[in-house]
């Protein structure tokens, strides 16, 4: 019966299933590495242990977990705050020029490779970079600002990475709001600001939740940005994994960090969704 209704289902699904199997296999490998002993000086692994997970509680590593979470929160919030006005203008502006400008500004970063984009930021944020030269030339500051290799610098670049996607998700949500709601509010005597805060913003709820969750999850797995902009001073979980796996060749510990990171992502998103549930329920 099923094959009759969807005759090509098996054929089309096969590549997907193969890829999924491959990923599942890799995941199983990582999982089993995470509960093995490291044999110093060898890439082989030893017997079963939970030591890798208890070792993570060391303040040095716990700190990286907290920093990662904090960076995710900052990035998600700033992407939302910057992305919402952009998305609103993108959807509601009547001027084609405005729409195109916003679309170009928000979408271009998606087409730049991560490394190229990150290196351009090094040029912009460095001590002799664009921003500092400008501020020094106009004598706004006497000493160059330290942005590169700081949490601020990493946050700026992470926001640049997530902003396009968040903006587009918000724009989709805003475009789905029937303007009749806003017109109805206005006809009832609400001024534009009230209309925005009582009608438009609450009705964007589902888009806001989706945007926050995406920015959060995406930032969690960021690698190139903290690696290059953080310069070893700001580390996220992926940098730690890289350092341990390919610097120290401690594969079991790297694997357990990955597993813990993954679990933390799932947990954070679950908490986020739960906290934002009232927002998500909104909608026609």
């Amino acid at each position, binding site marked *: 019966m099923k094959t009759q209704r969807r005759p090509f289902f098996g054929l089309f699904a096969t590549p997907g299933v193969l890829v999924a199997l491959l990923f599942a296999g890799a995941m199983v490998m990582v999982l089993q590495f995470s509960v093995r002993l490291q044999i110093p000086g060898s890439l082989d692994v030893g017997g079963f242990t939970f030591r890798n997970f208890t070792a993570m509680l060391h303040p040095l590593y716990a700190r990286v977990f907290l920093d990662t979470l904090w960076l995710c929160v900052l990035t998600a919030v700033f992407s939302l705050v910057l992305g919402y006005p952009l998305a609103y203008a993108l959807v509601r502006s009547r001027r084609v020029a405005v729409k195109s400008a916003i679309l170009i500004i928000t979408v271009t970063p998606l087409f730049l490779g991560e490394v190229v984009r990150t290196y351009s930021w090094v040029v912009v944020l460095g001590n002799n970079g664009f921003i500092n030269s400008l501020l020094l030339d106009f004598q706004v500051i006497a000493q160059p600002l330290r942005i590169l290799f700081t949490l601020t610098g990493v946050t700026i670049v992470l926001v640049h990475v997530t902003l396009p996607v968040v903006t587009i998700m918000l724009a989709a949500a805003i475009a789905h709001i029937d303007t009749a709601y806003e*017109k109805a509010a206005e006809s009832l005597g609400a001024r*534009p600001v009230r209309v925005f805060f009582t009608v438009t913003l609450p009705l964007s709820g589902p888009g806001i939740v989706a945007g926050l969750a995406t920015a959060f999850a995406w930032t969690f797995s960021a690698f190139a940005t903290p690696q290059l902009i953080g310069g070893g001073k700001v580390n996220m979980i992926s940098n730690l994994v890289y350092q341990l796996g390919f610097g120290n060749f401690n594969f079991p510990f790297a694997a357990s960090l990955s597993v813990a990171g993954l679990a933390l992502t799932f947990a954070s998103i679950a908490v986020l969704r739960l906290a934002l549930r009232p927002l998500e329920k909104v909608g026609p």
Partner: protein
Amino acid sequence: MSSIPVDAETKVGAAPDLAAAARAQDLAVRLDGVTKRFGNTVALNDAWLQVRRGEFLTLLGPSGCGKTTMLNLVAGFLFPDNGEVFIDGALVTDVPTYEREIGIVFQNYALFPHMTVASNVGYGLKARGVAQREIAERVTEILAMMKLAGLEDRKPGQLSGGQQQRVALARALVIRPKVLLLDEPFSALDKNLRSAMQIEVKEIQRKLGVTTIFVTHDQSEALSLSDRIAVVSEGKIRQIGTPQEIYRRPANRFIASFIGEVSVLRARLERIEKSEAVVQVGAASITVPAGPLAGQSPGITVDLFVRPEQLCLASGDVALEGQVATTVYQGDHVDLYIDAPAAASTRILMRLPSHDRVPGAGATIGLAIGGHDATAFPAVES
């Protein structure tokens, strides 16, 4: 349609005099020569409209004639390219919507989905800074009036279509608007609910005495609800009058054929006597209003517009002879479609009570025109 004469009603606004100025106090809404273009489309072309205080006025016209545009101009969602808009005697052409004190019910109701019924209805009062206690009182009062008591805490998604409509109406009315605007509010309802809501809306409108502008392209809805109907076509108001006037004394061919069902017969103008004209159709001669034939000389061919219920079976000096093509049983009446070679329209529609003896298909019958409600217009060359 360029030959359509501008009727007397619409000219009143065009040349305001002292009497008109005095009457202006009774006007809830006035459009003075408004024109609205969208690119190359002229949605409204020098439209004049006067809505009296407390009346139920319907804008009726075919799709795309500019009804919604007119409503949007009154609401302030659009601004005219030319002309002025007045509400309650005050010039509001450039006043934003939120200062116009209007109530609107949208076609899809546009109830705020994230608010309860009570918050929806109280929204306008809250925006006006009315005290919390008074809001609660007025909301309770209007909900009771709209038979919505007990639904205060529901969300719009948990209401039936009819309930949603009543909430939308309550929300618009609770602010005591200067004018209530309804844009095809019943089109989303099924037929039974629609007629129930029509009666309800009409009752509430009369009880509150709120000036109402109602938009529809459904002519039977317009005829049954309105105090007056404004027939709109191609961005202009073609005739304003009571439903009876519009139905029985259409100002031009367009209105005669747009409102109600009509068949066109060929006739000859005999003479014009003051307000009446006599036309000869077949072996019968009947009187029609002289207005549409003003300035025509006797002997010319005219088109006679007759309603299905004005035709009756006859023998002797009949207006027309024809052959019954089909009969359609409608319960309380029967529709007869008649082929008559002498008529201008290919098929004549007549309506007989179903308890009468109805001739069957193929029968040759004679028709007479009863009453005084037929209207004649100069024939158009084809």
